[in-house]
């Protein structure tokens, strides 16, 4: 069972929604790939400083093609630019920022999230070459760890579960999940529904979720602009 495409948010819209919750003055790390999109939708008037694990604070968007400096890259190994006030540092300082609790927000992708906050996002457990990067550090370092993800897998399986079945990235670390259908907080070992698309019924949303969606307070409409 899947939600049809016209009834769910695009990746850009999920990223937009996550960006609205990043406060002025926040230090933020965005995971490689999809989470990098969040920076594009930072609301005007807020100063947000982005951290990249390889050793830059306050980097900006990609330079024009042909103007790349390959000593100036982000954790996804894409060329970036600097903003006034940026800083370089070595890897132990970079992960002191992460592991020392100095980041306000980390936003990561997910294969699975469990109602107790467990995250699986680094290995599908199959054969092949395992690779972890900084994900296991980020989930225990940032004050707030949020996930952006499709609500279900490509084959329609729930990604929000009672327990993760894939190898864990971290235990009890995720506090909020932005999906293609809803915004869900993790509180007291439960998924608490905060927002859902107005076009989906609660029953339908529950049927696409692998654990109970708890109602604790009002559920707002998840309203996102066309992007």
């Amino acid at each position, binding site marked *: 069972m899947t939600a049809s495409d016209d009834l769910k948010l695009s990746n850009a819209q999920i990223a937009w929604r996550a960006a609205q919750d990043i406060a002025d003055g926040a230090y933020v790390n965005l995971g490689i790939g999809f989470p990098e999109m969040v920076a594009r939708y930072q609301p005007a008037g807020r100063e947000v400083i982005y951290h990249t694990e390889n*050793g830059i604070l306050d980097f900006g968007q990609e330079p024009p093609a042909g103007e790349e400096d*390959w000593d*100036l*890259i982000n954790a996804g190994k894409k060329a970036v630019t600097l903003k006034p006030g940026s800083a370089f540092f*070595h890897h132990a300082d970079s*992960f002191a920022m992460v592991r020392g609790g100095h980041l306000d927000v980390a936003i990561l992708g997910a294969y699975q999230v469990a109602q107790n906050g467990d995250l699986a996002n680094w290995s599908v457990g199959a054969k092949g070459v395992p690779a*972890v*990067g900084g994900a296991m550090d980020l989930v225990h370092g940032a004050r707030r760890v949020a996930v952006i993800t499709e609500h279900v897998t490509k084959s329609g399986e729930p990604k929000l579960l009672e327990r993760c079945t894939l190898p864990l990235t971290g*235990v009890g670390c995720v506090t909020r999940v932005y999906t293609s259908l809803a915004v869900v907080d993790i509180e007291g070992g439960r998924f608490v529904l905060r927002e859902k698309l107005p076009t989906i019924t609660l029953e339908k949303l529950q049927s696409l979720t692998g654990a109970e969606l708890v109602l604790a307070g009002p559920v707002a409409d998840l309203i996102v602009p066309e992007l």
Partner: protein
Amino acid sequence: MDKMIATPAEAVADIGDNATVMIGGFGGSGAPVELVHALIDRFVKTGTPRNLTVVNNNAGNGHVGLAAMIEVGMVGKLICSFPRSADPRVFTQKYLAGEIELELVPQGTLAERIRAGGAGIPAFYTPTCYGTELANGKPTAAFDGRPYVQERWLKADFALVKAQLGDRLGNLTYNKAARNFGPLMCTAARHAIVQVSKVVPPGTIDPEHVITPGIFVSRVVQVQNPAQEELLNRAGATYP
């Protein structure tokens, strides 16, 4: 005191079989391509050094630098956090064929293990990887009610590092985000071998701007206009 060495080949001449070698860089940024290629040259010519344990964040990209080291068969074990890249075929094939051992380490833990090695701290505790399969076999302990995993220091016989400016005393600056693991690896290796784009007289680098103090550096070799691994790969380069 003069730590200057004339050529990359001389700088890496005493790296022997079974050595542990830290190699700086995050992907191509900071990769000491000329030092690595000098080591490959010696292996191709003499069959040594072989069965090296290499510490790097990644596992090489394309067919140059670390990937080329792996491809010629001189690396027995790799300690890294993210053995994937735009073109990871060399490592992937060796790994899946069982021809190279992999120790996968979370990136921050890798950095901190190297830092601890350089600082004489044999072990430390971190929440990173607690409750995951990467914690299997490692001691755990609770501090102030939170669980942590014990990790051991990481040291090396040699480090190969790329820096920007260097003087004969070994004081170094780096170029932008190419700094990454360089300062840590210089502290954790018995001999840090550094290629610099420009050698300057002592005193030229403002003491306020020295990133790696010379005490951590054994050898400095000048490589003007060093290769950028990303550009080599975009040009489809191979080595040797």
